[in-house]
């Protein structure tokens, strides 16, 4: 009498699930760069807090999702100064502008009005925001 053939490997439904998970992982890796991943744990800048007392935030590091508004100045020794508009989902609200200093080490960035940037900034002396990292999302 013949014996019933014993099944081999994973069941098809499990294989399909694994393939799905691998596909999602590959997609995430393809759509998310390494820099963005580094800002994942950084606090988002609260503009109200910053305006009320920038000094109290001195030394802190924040991330900002901004649009370049205009160039305020360009110093060969300190870098470039821009006014940027914080991204706000409420389109009817008054745009919130803050100044950001792009220091010389980030001088290779090409920054123009209207560009969208993700920035990691630090509150330095005089309540100034100084970019430590900036990249286009």
């Amino acid at each position: 009498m013949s014996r019933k053939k014993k099944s081999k490997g994973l069941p098809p439904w499990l294989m399909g699930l694994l393939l799905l998970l691998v596909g999602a992982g590959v997609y995430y890796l393809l759509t998310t760069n390494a820099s963005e991943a580094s800002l994942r744990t950084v606090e988002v800048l609260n503009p109200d807090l910053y305006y009320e007392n920038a000094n109290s935030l001195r030394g802190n590091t924040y991330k900002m999702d901004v649009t370049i508004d205009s160039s305020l100045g360009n110093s060969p020794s300190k870098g470039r100064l821009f006014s940027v508009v914080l991204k706000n989902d409420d389109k009817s609200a008054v745009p919130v502008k803050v100044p950001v200093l792009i220091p010389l080490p980030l001088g290779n960035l090409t920054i123009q009005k209207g560009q969208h940037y993700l920035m990691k900034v630090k509150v330095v002396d005089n309540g100034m925001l100084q970019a430590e990292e900036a990249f286009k999302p």
Partner: protein
Amino acid sequence: MINNTQRFKFLLVGAGIAFSGLVCAQVPNAQTIHETGQQYKEGNPLTGAADNLAIGSQAMFEANLKTKKNIVDMKPNTFLSLWNNPGFAVQFEKFLSAPAETSEDANLYRQRIDKIMDLLSPGNATKANQDEAFNLLPLASEFESDANNCTTIHDAVYAAANGKVEIQRLTDVDQELNKSLETAQYNYVQSAKSLSLSSEVISKIEQANNDKNAAEVRAAVLDPSKNDVASLKATIQRNQQQIASTELQSKFALQSLILQLFVQRRYQHVIIIDRFYRALFDDGDQSLEGFQQMADKLGYNKAAGQVKLIANANPTGALAAGGGNNTGSGAGASAGTGSNGPSASVGNNNYDTTGGDATALSGSGLNLGIENLSMESMENAFTTGMRGASRTFKSLSQLDAFANEIIRDVNEGVKVYRFLLDKNELESASSQLAAVFTKGEYLPSVRLLSVDEKRKTLEYAQLCNRLVNAANSGNIDVLSDVVDAMKKMNPSFDDAEIQAKLQGVKTASTLLVAQAKVAAAKGDLQSVQTQITRAAALWPNNPEVTSFSSEMGKMSEEASPQVKALADFDQLYAQGNFRQIFDDKEKYIAAISQSPERQDKLRAVLSRMQEIETSIMRAQEIARRGDYAGAWEGLQTTFLHYPDDLKLTQLRAEYSTQSPDFVRNINTAKDDEEKKEFGSALAWYLKAQSVYPMSDLSKEGIARVVKELLPDAS
């Protein structure tokens, strides 16, 4: 029956009615009054400042004369005249403020003085007691209040005693010399008898030779004895002269000291040294004639005047003050007013004094007083006092009696003072205390008066002083206040006459104002100024004078709008109220066209206000479009230049409530910029720009802050 006062009141009322009638009659002539008021306001062209001063001075002099004469006639003037003598006032005030001498030292001093006096008193003055008293003198002199007078007495008595010893020695020597003289005279006689003469008859030539020889022999025998006699006589005579001289000198020294202490009012010391004198020189009622001769030779500085110690050997119990010439004979004190000014004097036999304020106070037994106290005059006072004393007192007995009498009198005066003080009769009490102090400043009863007992007199004296000063100042109101205060403190103070005089001066001042009003109605500016100046001088705080000046000022303003406009402009300009000037600019432009010195000021004011007004109009126009942030910003720029304009400030405040976010952003940015928080300031300026993108303030602020952050920015 109508008395003089009532008649005067009727006349006064009548005069008032007459003046009022004249004023009322002239009122319709308002233009004249206005013109006069105008001239009055602008200054009198007819009467110079010097003339006004002279008129005022004359009026004040008249007022002073009235009040001062009244005060001079007042009952407490005796006390006042003493108080007004600077030298006396200082001493008296010091005495009134000094505590009673009740310390242990002071008590011990008094005990020693009493002991000395007791030891030397007539019944006790034995040799032993005199020696004990003499030994106590240096001990008594240890105390400050003695001023070393006891030491002086001790030294003088010691010197006099030494003189007596010398006299005794010379007397003893003379007795020995007299014995020697008798012996010499006897020897001389015996030698003369022993000479034998030849009895033989000889020729004339021989006779002559014999006589010659006999004379030589006689001389040889008698001359030694004769010389001895002459020498002894000369020595005795010289000793007798020295005895007389020494005694006179000793007596004279003591007498001088006695009189000096008397002049110093150290009466207990006078009695002490007088008793020592009696013990040393037993020459009966000791004459002071020698001392009088010395006193007449003392120096006197006529230019310095003199402080007079006034003593009266013929007590009358009178009190006098005044001045004048006094010439007379016999003992006495006098005071009065004469052709050469006030004077008081004292003396015995012939005396003559002229000029100077004076006061004589009487006590029981004698009168004493002082006047014209100064450093130079003190020397003269000493001389005069010594002369006066030497003439007043002929013997030490008199002096001793007087010293005792003064001590008794002062002690009684202190009791009287306490009694009057208890009865609150300050006027009499103060005069009594002044008299007591003058006579016996150093006596125990005076020194033992407590501060509390003297305090009321000090306050009264100060009030009297204020009264005199107020009278001298010519300020009627101050004088009235002081008189009221005196009346309150001393209910017995008779102020009726002085109040009547004060009222008279006030009435005269008011009448002069009425005359000024009449003159104003007539347009007589000269009289207005004269009368009102006199009225103000008589009574500076006369409400009529004040209201008259105010009325004239108002009339002046009404009479000339131009003058008023100029005055207003000056006032508004000084207050910084430029908007008011701008609002009435037509009036001021017209008025200032005749006043070149104000034209630059007006031009600056108008320029400033033009700028403000332009800014306001522009802001209002912007606001009409709903752009309140723009309107506020426009005003803010002007406000920074002219922060004191009320209208600008109000409008700016109004617009700031219309655009609060923008105003807050700009203000916060400005604050951070001033604090050099340039990062925050830039953020706030950007925020303001977000609210009002057209903002020039934001734009300028951003540019400034960026320049600070990036000085080398391109």
